[in-house]
């Protein structure tokens, strides 16, 4: 199927989500275009992760529609085109005795098929991807023994190994020290520029992010801003985070 001309990777239309009688998301329109590096920001509890889960079909919205690669989510089948790095603490069991190699190989399972094992081509692909994120030397280490930043690179490798067109990351820098966060964003912008990978990054930490992304969307129940990173101004943040925003936008320091 040749659909390289498709430029809208993700399109969310009029999404509303309620938990009990509390409105988490209200009438959200959001789209991600080919080649963008979109930073989706908002304070804790603003509905960012919920929006991502709706985008990926993990949660059902109360209203609105989602399409991925211009196909409705309900009939979408090409999941190998989407790389997803879940919020680690919430989803992944890190006590699991798996090596870095084993974790990354999971990213290929949907391609490998039933009763089949990884062949030489797959193994080479895993090595290349680990090299790409700078984790090849840790290939046989246990995932639980690595630092938060290293684990995050492994999860990115797992998402990249199936050669997706878009990479979606949910709060990837939580629990990672400031210097590592900097290197992490450099890795992402290299993937965006050199590999032409479309990126959607969800974070509550606006500080460093704005230097690297091409587009920004601010979420706090509704979308407060959605446009290119150049047009994004501090006033947009103040309307969302309140007056304490300076702490977030300038000195990013080491947040825990």
């Amino acid at each position, binding site marked *: 199927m040749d659909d390289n001309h498709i430029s809208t990777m993700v399109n969310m239309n009029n999404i509303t989500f309620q938990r009990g009688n509390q409105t988490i998301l209200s009438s959200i329109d959001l789209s991600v275009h080919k080649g963008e590096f979109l930073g989706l920001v908002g304070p804790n509890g603003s509905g960012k992760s919920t929006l991502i889960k709706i985008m*990926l079909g993990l949660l059902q919205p109360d209203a609105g529609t989602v399409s991925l690669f211009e196909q409705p989510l309900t009939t979408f089948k090409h*999941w190998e085109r989407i790389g*997803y790095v879940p919020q680690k603490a919430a989803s992944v*069991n890190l006590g699991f005795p798996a*090596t870095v190699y084993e974790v990354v190989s999971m990213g290929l399972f949907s391609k490998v098929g039933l*009763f089949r094992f990884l062949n030489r081509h797959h193994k080479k692909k895993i090595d290349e991807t680990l090299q790409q994120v700078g984790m090849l030397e840790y290939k046989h280490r246990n995932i639980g023994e690595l630092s938060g930043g290293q684990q995050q690179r492994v999860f990115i490798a797992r998402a990249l190994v199936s050669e997706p067109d878009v990479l979606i990351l949910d709060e990837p820098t939580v629990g990672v020290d400031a210097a590592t966060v900097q290197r992490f964003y450099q890795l992402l912008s290299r993937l965006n520029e050199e590999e032409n990978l479309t990126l959607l990054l969800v974070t509550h930490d606006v500080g460093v992010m704005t230097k690297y992304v091409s587009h920004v969307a601010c979420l706090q129940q509704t979308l407060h801003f959605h446009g290119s990173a150049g047009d994004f101004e501090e006033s947009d943040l103040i309307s969302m985070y309140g007056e304490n925003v300076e702490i977030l936008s300038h000195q990013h320091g080491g947040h825990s």
Partner: protein
Amino acid sequence: MMELTFLERGIIAALCIGLIAPLMGTLLAVRRSSIIADSLSHVTLTGISAGVLIGGTMQFIPVHPLYTGFAFSLAGSLFIEKLRQEYASFQELAAPIILSAGIGLSAVFMSLAPSGQNEWYDYLFGSVVSVGKGDLLFILITFIVSGLLFGLFFKELVFVSFDQEGAAVSGIKMKTINFLFSFLTALVISMSMKVVGILLVGALISLPAAAALQLASSFRALVLWSIVIGEAAVLTGVISSYHLSLATGGSIVVSAALILGAVLAWKPVSARIFSRRNQL
């Protein structure tokens, strides 16, 4: 198969169980749901009691208690899976409810049954000498079915156990895999009934995985160690129970517990040896 002695039948059955039960145990351990095996084994007992009751009162219906046991076990595991999904905070509560309801119901069935109380005792603690031809056939069928399912879907089962969301987004059909988890758990428990018994099947599922977790640094190694430890435990258990006339399930589980104890004792010793070696 017809010429086998009861001990040979018992050993074949035990080898099948020693492979599949610890394999299931590794997945249940990393899913943090080892307790489910214990609850389900009690529901399986309810099914077995129902089978014994039907067999005793309505002899025109040809039922083998292991098959009714499996049916109840499957229903119970689907019910638990449903609770796991719909009430995340209910998970701990589901297990004891199912466990006590299962054992209560099976006691009622057994008191209604005109005969079969001795048979019931065999199902509680397992007895290698009670493995008849029909039982061995059931064990072999369930062994082949579960072996095939593990072979077909092992990658998916592992991925789902490690990271539910990641697996869902990679295109794995979560409903299918979750059903498969329930189906396999039910299958493994009902196939172990005759040899290990209801009260001890949970131990055969979780003890080898617990010992293997101490030894393994990769998932591959975890699976291999669990199977090796499981087979070692069932073989020592079956042979010692035969020669010393002990309850088979008891000897198997005591062997598994001794292996776990040895592994736990060895760990600090080996750590000291290796750290000394690194200092040199």
